[in-house]
């Protein structure tokens, strides 16, 4: 409501986070072609999700949000990723526990259930997960909530009235700024912010923060997939070429061997 000192930090922010193979890890496709090998591979919070958590925490630090809730969906190990978000400054976590292979549409539906429970004004998600590279969940959640969407955000500014948010987006031609009515789904792009490292004191503090455990059944969401993965393979490897001795040699090769000049 209006008036009084308390109205400013009225907003609740939900942040979605995903546990993925670390961006620097070497990707190995299983010999049977059933998928990518994740055994004994380093897992981390999806880089775009880190940016989303950082942005949410900054909203709290600016006094615009009163609570940041970190949400992740997946197997037991997703807990680790939620703990990292809590260590970065999120207040509490929600873990939707499932071993099912979740696809964006199912995830969006799970988020809808959580959004209906938590009543946030902003949902922050990474623009894409670096494993499936889908770039769909945020847009889908906005659709089924009938909310506005600000995708590929490189700048987010909540209006003083807290009824609208200005989002600058990285698009093919450059930058575009939209004014969105709240509540909104915002997906983060690379240059929105530089996420903080969780400090040891904050990691310790995070152990005391609550993580609520839910299941898709409890949320009433059917997570069966409309898409079947038939096989996964490696792309054709590019054969490395030669290091040349001089610019002259390069120009000659480009002209006479590659035929591109």
């Amino acid at each position, binding site marked *: 409501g209006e008036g009084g000192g308390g109205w400013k930090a009225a907003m609740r922010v939900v942040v979605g986070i995903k546990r993925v193979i670390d961006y620097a890890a070497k990707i190995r496709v299983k010999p049977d072609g059933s998928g*990518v090998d994740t055994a004994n591979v380093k897992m981390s919070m999806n880089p775009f999700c880190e940016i989303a958590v950082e942005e949410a925490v900054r909203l709290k630090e600016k006094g615009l949000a009163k609570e940041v809730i970190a949400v992740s969906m997946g197997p037991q190990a997703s807990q680790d990723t939620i703990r990292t978000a809590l260590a970065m400054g999120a207040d509490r976590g929600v873990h939707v526990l499932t071993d099912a292979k979740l696809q964006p549409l199912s995830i969006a539906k799970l988020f809808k259930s959580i959004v209906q429970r938590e009543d946030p004004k902003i949902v922050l998600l990474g623009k894409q997960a670096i494993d499936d590279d889908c770039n769909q969940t945020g*847009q889908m959640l906005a659709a089924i909530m009938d909310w506005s969407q600000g995708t*590929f955000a490189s700048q987010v500014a909540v209006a003083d009235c807290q009824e609208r948010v200005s989002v600058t987006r*990285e698009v093919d031609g450059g930058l575009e700024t939209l004014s969105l009515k709240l509540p909104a789904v915002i997906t983060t792009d690379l240059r929105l912010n530089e996420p903080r490292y969780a400090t040891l004191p904050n990691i310790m503090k995070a152990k005391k923060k609550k993580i609520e455990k839910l299941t898709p059944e409890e949320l009433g969401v059917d997570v069966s997939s409309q898409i079947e993965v038939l096989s996964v393979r490696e792309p054709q490897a590019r054969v490395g070429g030669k290091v040349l001795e001089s610019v002259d040699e390069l120009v000659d090769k480009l002209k006479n061997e590659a035929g591109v000049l």
Partner: protein
Amino acid sequence: GLKVRVAQATGAERRSGKELTKVGSSGGEMWSRTLLKSLRGARQSSQQSGERSLGTLCIVEAKDGAGGLDSASKATLACAQKHLPKPFVALVASDAKGASEEAAGEIASLAGVETVLHGVSDKEGANGLLAEPLSQVVAALVGKLEPTHVVTGSNTFGKNLLPRVAALLDSAPITDVVQVVDESTFVRPIYAGNALSTVKFVGKGPLLLSVRTTAFGSEALETAQGAGAEVASVGAEEVAAGAAAEALSEWVGEEKSESERPQLDAARVVVSGGRALKSKENFEMLEKLADQLGGALGASRAAVDAGMCSNDLQVGQTGKVVAPELYLAIGISGAIQHLAGMKDSKTIVAINKDPEAPIFKVADYGLVGDLFKIIPELAEKLPSQK
């Protein structure tokens, strides 16, 4: 029910007891008036029985001043033409009436098109491209036309729009497709293109997909023989479907790079700079090289992050994906995420002072040395391509 599919380019097909023959001679297909009339008739009867009968709905974006269809739109239409069920209806979304009409006219002359629709929004300007109202219009159009497939490009326009449409239709989309295996089976890259996933759609449909420009952009578009397709305005009912959502968002402004150079995702040559350029002024040194080669400028994430150039130059997993004839990676180390955006280039040249830089593993030709010496020498010795 009657399921009508139009014959593919390879000859006569028999479908559901109805024989469809390719009319006309050599080369491309000719869609005779009689064939189209019979399709319309079939569609009416199948709409009554609730079956889908339109092949594909293509969504293309026509921007003011673009001077014709962009590469993403061409890739969308090429994919529809070569790989997806016909006939197709094209929907032109635009920020300007003139651009919209120009694009519609261009599309109407293509083979396989039944109708081109435009005039999606009453709003002039970039508000006509906002996802919230546009997705509702598209969803309404899908409800009316009942296509089996909906396709658009995998550029920022398509990425912003298609998943929203898909969710409204409760259909899981398949995005960033690089290969069509059959009408329900597709290949898409995952893990920054380090793996390729073959997926099959098993939902009730429609099947929504977005296509990577580099995978379909080089296929030439076939023109129709005979009269072109009908160009019409989107129906009032469908336009009205977007009205309520217009309140959700508003276009405020943009910062776009103006350049005479070719578009990055369609250029024959790309001159790309990385962190080693060190400054904006140094980065501008590449502009001369790009101009000499008649190419576009590209950049690694590090260069953009450092403020050396604008974000629209970024090539990579989460930036633009390019596949030019010639890609010059200058002062770029070759991180996985960058390779994802350029490893399908025909010829890759790497210039870097670190002989261990991963870029040399994918480059056809490399030069190890100081780029600040190599680039001026290269500029001097390259024949001008303009």
